[in-house]
């Protein structure tokens, strides 16, 4: 694997794929920059895997265009697309050992056997499985199979790498470890990567940009921080992280919660009914007199849960709504945690005061 591996931008335009009356993809467009790591995130049935299959050539859309670099590939059969892919269940050939699995794409490309041996070894070393070349697939653990699948997908130096929920079968600890490894691998090799997952934390951890997809449509395409801090719809705010929603009225660039005006960092985009996104960890418990420059919410503590690294408590607001509040279990924060049934004041920084359109 050369240091300067080629990578290609991907341009998806107007892809629609329907199964009968059900639209798995509805006029989807996406531009992926060369070398970018992009994640398609969505609930099951959202169309994220379908889009990946369209990129790989396994699913034939009704219409649209897919370009790898300058080349239109929409009608190109999968075996000519030259993209690497890691399958959800790894799809390692059970009748071949580790070496032959990884060597397979090279053999297909007519690479000389000495060269194959060298490249396979390099790819396996890259995923720390250099010592496992002669193993049968059924002698490997889940994590090892994952690495072999990864090695097989990159050994032929594809300019585009597709991954279909590659970590979903692993336990939490291994999954987190692999996330970092894949990220490093991507940094090292630099190929354009499209990654599919339904795990929002995984998406935020690994990606340059995340495309949130639902009902066959992109809801938002942004960098992880932007996506979390500035969700543009109730769906995204709800799907990524925890959120409570409070109804807000917007009139003449002023937003009011239960009649009280809110301090906003940005001008609201539209008038009428909107929703205030309240993330539990963004709320601060206010002591008497503090929080003059914050938006202030008052209510009563209903429930208190100790969760180790934080306290979670549910507050019944004076307006009638109920929200969750997370407070870190740091010593100074512990001091201000009220008891059940006590009134409480909560502060929300204007930067964290985010409005999204109410869903119709």
């Amino acid at each position, binding site marked *: 694997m050369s240091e300067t591996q080629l990578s290609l931008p991907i341009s998806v335009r107007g892809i629609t794929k329907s199964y009968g009356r059900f639209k798995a993809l509805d006029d989807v467009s996406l531009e992926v920059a060369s070398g970018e790591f992009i994640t398609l995130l969505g609930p099951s049935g959202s169309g994220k895997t379908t889009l990946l299959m369209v990129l790989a050539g396994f699913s034939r859309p009704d219409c649209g265009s897919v370009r790898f670099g300058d080349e239109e590939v929409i009608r190109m*059969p999968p*075996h000519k697309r030259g993209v690497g892919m890691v399958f959800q269940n790894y799809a390692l050939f059970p*009748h071949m050992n580790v070496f032959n699995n990884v060597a397979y794409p090279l053999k297909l490309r007519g690479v000389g056997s000495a060269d194959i041996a060298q490249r396979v070894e390099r790819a396996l070393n890259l995923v720390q499985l250099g010592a496992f070349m002669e193993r049968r697939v059924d002698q490997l653990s889940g994590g090892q199979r994952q690495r072999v699948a990864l090695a097989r997908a990159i050994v*032929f130096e594809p300019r585009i790498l597709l991954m279909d929920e590659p970590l979903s079968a692993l336990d939490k600890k291994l999954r987190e470890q692999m996330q970092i490894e894949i990220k490093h691998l991507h940094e090292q090799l630099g190929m354009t990567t499209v990654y599919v997952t339904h795990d929002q934390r995984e998406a935020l951890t690994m990606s340059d940009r995340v495309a949130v997809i639902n009902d066959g449509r992109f809801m938002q395409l942004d960098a992880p921080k932007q996506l979390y801090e500035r969700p543009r719809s109730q769906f995204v705010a709800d799907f990524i992280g925890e959120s409570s929603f409070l109804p807000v009225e917007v009139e003449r660039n002023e937003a009011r919660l239960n009649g009280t005006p809110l301090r906003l960092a940005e001008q609201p985009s539209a008038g009428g009914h909107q929703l205030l996104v309240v993330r539990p960890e963004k709320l601060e418990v206010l002591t008497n007199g503090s929080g003059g420059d914050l938006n202030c919410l008052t209510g009563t503590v209903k429930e208190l849960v100790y969760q180790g690294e934080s306290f979670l408590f549910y507050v019944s607001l004076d307006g009638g709504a109920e929200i969750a509040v997370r407070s870190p279990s740091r010593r100074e924060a512990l001091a201000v945690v009220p008891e059940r049934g006590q009134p409480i004041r909560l502060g929300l920084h204007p930067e964290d005061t985010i409005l999204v359109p109410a869903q119709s």
Partner: protein
Amino acid sequence: MTAIPRETPVPVSAGTNADGLAEDARRERWQMFGLCSPALLLVGLVVFIPVGWLFWLSFFDAQGALTFENYERMWGSRSYIRTFQTTFEISFIVTGACVLMGYPLAYMLSQLPQRAAGICMIFVILPFWTSLLVRTYAWLVLLQRQGLINTWMIDLGIIDEPLRLVHNFTGTVIGMVHILLPFLVLPLFAAMKSIDRDYLKAASNLGASPTRAFWQVFFPLSLPGLFAGVVLVFVLCLGFYVTPALLGGGKTIMWAMRIETSVNLYANWGAASALGVVLLIVTLGLLYVLNKAFRLDKIMAGPR
């Protein structure tokens, strides 16, 4: 540990209850074995005892004296050797034809949607509902000189003289292939169904054309099913009786027909028993060799 337990537990040493637990494990194994015993007994009764008796009988002549004449008879006779050759020749050809016809059929079935595959499967299995004899006679009706196929072909002007399709080697092979085809298709279909389609997608993604993906990935993965079917068909072929007897025209004599002749020809069962023993030993020997050659046990176990 600062907390003091309210009750002091009974102190336990390393080997506590070890004997009792081992005893439980042993008893459980025997109980499991006990559950199998009716099946084992049945197999013993209906397989091993008769086969053993067959073996025993084959060493005695009509007067009940110990003899090898039942076996010696076979080595000397060109007719027996010819029968032996014919039996294997037919078995190889029928098995080969079943593979050539059954593999594409099973492949097609495995690729069809569930419902369509189910319906097609019924057509594959349907012949099992008809008696072997009826199916064999049906072939006679189709293949004979004034049968349907010859009549049609003459009427259509394809041929002038009727073809000799039955009462010979050809007829025997046709009839046997038809009867044995499902025995190949069923295990093969099951094996093909269990092949994850992602393997083919993976192969294709890695750069394999559909043809190469088929031969390098699908075909090797279907081999366990194919071997199971081949062994089943081949072994069934070796002992076939009705079809060659009816469609072979008397000229195609297979081993089982020779056994029938022997039962009628000789005063004791020894002659026929010896033939049965030879067939059994050759079949087992063949399985052993195939097993060594192809590591059938590994293949049969299938991918894990």
